[in-house]
């Protein structure tokens, strides 16, 4: 088993070195996938803190009835920026960034297929975010039309300020970066795999990133076109979305959600990938039903393209359209349920080690299922008509995106931090972070289901002193403060562990995928030698030559 095969061919273009003391310039000019990945993670952490601060200000404003802690104008700007930031500048770029870091390592490659394009993607994301946040410093303030910027509110003459224009420009720039990332990922996964790493052997995270990247390639141009139309409306006086001049406000909704619904799968599929890596390693078992997890991802990707109008039941599209979109949306529960069963079956009978990554991974399953169940409920038209635009919806998508994506992101950070930095995150602080997150998250959002059913509208600046509304909102606000505290512990953990964390070694979790075969952090060229790939768990095969996953499999 000592036979090691050489590295994939060197890139034709020389890459910058990662030597110490190269300073800021070595980062700014970098086209190394690991450096670019780390830059994504740092920038998304900053946006996470900003978006979290905006959320806390919203919760303070809502802590008791009739509050005037914020002005109504600032409140509108804050909830718009909170949603936009968390979706486009935290969850999405985090997942793209962690993908950029890990994909080449997981498939045994030297770098991405197009390292310069990779850098372009990052800088488009970076400057897109700055363009968006610059709007706070303009006279008219930040965008204040909600994260989906419905027309005609986002159009002249209802929005005389420039906020929506900054919003569209910033997202246009970062969106083009996302398309470039998607293209780069797809070509990397399809052409850069080390010999033996067939499509049936790539880690499930890579499968999820492949489907996500295809969604980026095919779905972002929908919103790019819509942003272009919105900008033409606001700058050149075009009339796409202005009903007063023959345009159509509903068209914006169709275009936005034609992108917007697949977008939520762009946010959750890589999270599924993280969970599909973490759960087997901490259950000490191979993933149960690899093919089903991969195939159900493809099914989700395809279904996600045909369900957009379930966001528009309140428009009144007619019974036929409502019935179709309701049914198609409910269908997504099937491939999603397949995954949940696979994860549970992987844990079943395993020797489970509840280290912090696994705690977040396990909690992910539970919290995400809550968001999934409310999702099936509101896919039903009559229920949607009752709770639409209420706090029930806010609770639903926070369970999906925070309870789902962000819990998986935390699992991924604790799991791969040793690989990124060479040091372990503190388990003690990790457990504090985990339990405060679980308590704070559920305290904040579970009660919002009830507030929604009781009729509290989302995005409301304040509310009358209705029975129980004040106390329920106060509970939610206290939960948000606990959540804020948990994030501070998380950041503290990162800062402390970077300096004083326990040295990790190459493979602290005894994991099986290729990224753990190299040093932590990996050298510039990633691998000295790529281990032979004869199955889905190359490092298991290497350590147990007498009982490989695929007996008799050839290397190449």
């Amino acid at each position: 088993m000592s036979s090691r095969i050489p590295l994939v061919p060197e890139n034709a273009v020389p890459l910058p070195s990662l030597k110490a003391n190269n300073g800021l310039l070595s980062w700014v000019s970098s086209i190394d996938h690991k450096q670019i990945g780390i830059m994504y993670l740092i920038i998304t952490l900053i946006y996470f803190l900003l978006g979290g601060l905006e959320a806390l200000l919203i919760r303070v404003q809502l802590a008791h009835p009739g509050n005037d802690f914020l002005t109504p104008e600032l409140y509108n700007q804050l909830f718009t920026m909170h949603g936009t930031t968390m979706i486009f500048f935290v969850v999405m770029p985090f997942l793209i960034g962690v993908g950029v870091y890990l994909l080449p390592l997981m498939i045994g490659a030297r770098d991405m297929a197009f390292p310069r394009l990779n850098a372009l993607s990052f800088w488009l994301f970076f400057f897109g975010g700055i363009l968006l946040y610059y709007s706070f410093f303009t006279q008219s303030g930040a965008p204040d039309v909600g994260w989906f910027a419905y027309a005609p509110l986002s159009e002249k003459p209802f929005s005389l300020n420039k906020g929506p224009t900054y919003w569209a420009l910033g997202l246009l720039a970062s969106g083009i970066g996302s398309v470039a990332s998607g293209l780069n990922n797809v070509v990397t996964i399809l052409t850069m795999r080390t010999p033996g790493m067939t499509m049936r052997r790539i880690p499930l995270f890579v499968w999820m990133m492949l489907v996500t990247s295809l969604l980026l390639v095919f779905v972002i141009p929908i919103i790019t076109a819509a942003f272009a139309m919105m900008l033409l409306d606001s700058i050149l006086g075009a009339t796409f979305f202005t009903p007063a001049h023959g345009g159509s406000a509903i068209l914006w909704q169709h275009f936005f959600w034609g992108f917007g619904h697949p977008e939520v799968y762009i946010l959750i599929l890589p999270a599924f990938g993280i969970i599909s890596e973490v759960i087997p390693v901490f259950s000490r078992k191979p993933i149960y039903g690899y093919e089903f997890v991969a195939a159900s991802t493809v099914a989700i990707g395809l279904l996600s393209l045909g369900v957009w109008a379930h966001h528009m039941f309140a428009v009144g599209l007619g019974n036929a359209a409502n019935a179709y979109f309701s049914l198609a949306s409910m269908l997504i529960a099937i491939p999603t349920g397949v995954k949940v069963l696979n994860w549970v079956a992987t844990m079943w009978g395993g020797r489970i080690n509840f280290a912090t990554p696994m705690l977040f991974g396990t909690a992910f399953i539970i919290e995400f299922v809550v968001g999934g169940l409310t999702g099936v409920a509101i896919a039903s038209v009559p229920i949607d008509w009752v709770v639409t635009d209420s706090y029930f919806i806010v609770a639903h998508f926070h369970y999906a995106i925070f309870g789902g994506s962000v819990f998986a992101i935390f699992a991924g950070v604790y799991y791969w931090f040793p690989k990124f930095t060479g040091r372990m995150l503190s388990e003690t602080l990790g457990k504090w972070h985990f339990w405060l997150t679980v308590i704070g998250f559920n305290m904040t959002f579970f009660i919002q289901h009830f507030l929604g059913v009781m009729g509290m509208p989302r995005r409301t600046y304040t509310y009358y002193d209705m029975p129980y509304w004040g106390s329920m909102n106060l509970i939610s606000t206290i939960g948000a403060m606990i959540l804020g505290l948990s994030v501070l512990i998380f950041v503290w953990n990162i800062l402390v562990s970077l300096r004083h964390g326990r040295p990790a070694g190459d493979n602290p979790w005894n994991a099986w995928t290729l990224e753990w075969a190299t040093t932590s952090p990996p050298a510039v060229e990633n691998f000295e030698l790529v281990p032979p790939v004869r199955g889905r768990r190359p490092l298991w095969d290497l350590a147990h030559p007498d009982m490989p996953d695929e007996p008799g499999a050839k290397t190449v």
Partner: protein
Amino acid sequence: MANNRMLVGFFIASESIFFLMLILAYVNFHGSVTDGPTAVNSLNPVVTGIFSLFLFASSFTIWLAGKSLRNKNHFMLKVWILATIVLGAVFIFGQGLEWSGLLDKNITISRNVFGTTFFTLTGFHGFHVCVGLIMLSLLLGLALAGDFKGPKSDAVECISLYWHFVDGVWVVVFSVIYLWAFL
């Protein structure tokens, strides 16, 4: 490397969705204009049709350029790239004529929803043609500098793929805007 052609293939797929949205917007508002300019009362399908022939012909010449490279005929490679640039430039000139004629009659992007969708769709297509012309000019410069030894070049093949795409988009756009209005 197959990488580059695969990248361009997926890029073209992505761009197709972008143009699909612009075309859907045009189709959505087709017939909803009750007064003011429309495709029927303000466009000239014959003139634009003739200029379109130049663009369609340029797809043929860029194919001949690639064929010349495969045969290691470096002189004809340069000739056919130059011919492609000229044909594309004539098409863009025709687009400019049409636009200025419309603007003279005060038909603008803000006049009504026909103007909005027409100028957006033809404008983004024209922008893509211009980007193609810039890339073809770079290609010509590199060919003159003797960069392409043949028989294969990713740069020639990728830009040629892109150019066919721009041409193909115009087949659809021309059909939707002009043929639909006048046939």
